């Protein structure tokens, strides 16, 4: 467990290092390079501290909710254009709900339905956001 923690630290901070390294080349940037240097220094301190001291364990990661919630957000974004508001919302709700402790089809369906109707009334009708309602292959969308 401890090793995982160190590994994560290392990955997180060396990722930061990489960014800084390239900063000098990329930027018309005095400032980014300066900050980058500072970050390398701080990252090194954190790394050394975590190696030297037997700190508390890094809390366990729960990947299931993380992945599902992320997927849910992505589904919403990428289904909006081809699929329309209804499909995107429903997909996001279903994927997101899988991350919960209990998953009941009926309940989730109701939640999804309520949210689709709510989004339509409040965001599309009320705030007039330009969201497509129908999938893009239906040319003349009946719902406007």
């Amino acid at each position: 467990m401890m090793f995982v923690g160190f590994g994560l630290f290392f990955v997180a901070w060396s990722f930061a290092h990489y960014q800084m390294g390239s900063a000098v080349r990329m930027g018309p940037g005095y400032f980014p390079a300066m900050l980058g240097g500072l970050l390398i220094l701080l990252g090194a301190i954190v790394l050394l501290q975590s190696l030297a001291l037997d700190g508390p364990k890094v809390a366990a990661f729960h990947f299931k909710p993380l992945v599902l919630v992320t997927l849910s957000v992505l589904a919403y974004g990428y289904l909006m254009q081809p699929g329309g508001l209804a499909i995107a919302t429903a997909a996001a709700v279903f994927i997101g709900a899988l991350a919960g402790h209990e998953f009941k089809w009926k309940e989730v369906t109701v939640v999804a339905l309520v949210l689709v109707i709510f989004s339509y009334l409040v965001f599309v009708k009320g705030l007039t956001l330009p969201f497509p309602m129908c999938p893009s292959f239906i040319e003349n969308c009946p719902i406007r």
Partner: protein
Amino acid sequence: MEVLDNLILGAQVAFSWQNVLYCLVGVLLGTLIGVLPGIGPVPTIAMLLPITFNLDPTAALIMLAGIYYGAQYGGSTTAILVNLPGEASSVVTVLDGYQMARQGRAGPALAISAIGSFVAGCVATLIIATAAPPLAEVALKFGPAEYFSLMVLGLVAATVLAHGSLVKAIAMVVLGLLLGLVGTDVNSGVLRFTFGIPELADGVGFVIVAMGMFGVTEIVANLEQQGKREVFTGKLTHLFPTREDLKRSWAPILRGTGLGSCLGILPGGGAMLSSFASYTVEKKISKHPEQFGKGAIEGVAGPESANNAGAQTSFIPMLTLGIPGNAVMALMIGALMIQGIAPGPQVMTDKPQLFWGLIVSMWLGNAMLVVLNLPLIGMWIKLLRVPYRFLFPSILIFMNVGVFSLSNNPWDCLIMSAFGVFGYVCVKLECEPAPMILGFILGPLMEENLRRAMLLSRGDPTVFFNPMAKPISFSFLLAAVALLVIIALPNIRKKREEVFVEEP
């Protein structure tokens, strides 16, 4: 009485029916979302930011401020009824508030917290009205060097007051500064850190980062906690505090207000520090400290007033200097910028309607909180009983709508989820996301001021710390260094850790 004239101007703006309406909607929405356990003011504001984009700047800020104290108050409600702090600043409210609820005195606890907040809000509004103009006048004389040093001080103070490792907090600030630089360089027009992705040319959207780091992360973190919530189920019989309660609370309310008002102005201060400090003070001077933690009304009255006062006065540095003292104010600055207003001392002179309207609306919003929330408490309790499995998909959808509506581009959703993952990793590694948001907002500002200062001094770095030529800049930097040194000393570090331990 210039202050009075200004307040009258503000009142004219704030009491126009649209602004009253926006304030009302803000307070209601803020409370509604703030009541949900585990969602504090920062994610609430981040989530609701997109709603305000279509409004004019004054209305948008009035609404956001309303959302802020609504969320703050909602957090206290949750703390008292569910034994679960909605946010860091109501952690201490949980201690005595929930005990009061268990003794069947949830009504008085909620009422006292509302009354305390209102008193604090009134006083803090007056403080802002009197303190802001002279401060802004001073700030107008600041050159780029002073600004840069002030920002350094602000960021240092913010990290000092974050809990957890100091080094990590500073590292997060630096990371935030760097992320803030993504996009087109203002001076040379060169694209930086965009990796050839056209969407990154304008930089990473502030709202998106905030929603990812706070909203998405919050949901995931809540989902992994299996525990059942213990919701107060008894009936709220008598809402109003007894005369005895009032007698015991008025002094803590006043003390909390004073304490909160002072601490709120400090960079990095604000609501959380104020409530902790107030609780400690009340416990120290109370005649019966043994009652604390067992339902002492002072333990609710003091911190609740303090956190509201602190929340209000933390607007002062934001409005006058354009420098956010905490994550909420960073969001407010973000909102200002989105509205096309450059934050800084000139806001008060250029846009007096906005400035004074906002201040008067703070008072109005606090009054609304008392009037609205006492009758609505029953509704909030019902809301608390809604299982989280219904709530979180809804929150998720609202965030999606908000982000997607920014530019109708799925890219924004991708970035938000990326920051959600990053925020989750940060939480797991005990790196606070709040300092990063501060850095993110200040990054471009700092760079610009640094460049300007260097240009004016022809590359001479001593402009920042030459006590003769630039005494103000020098003293800011000195203060920043002093703060760092003090915190690094082992003795004080222990004390600081004690302050942030939940059980006093």
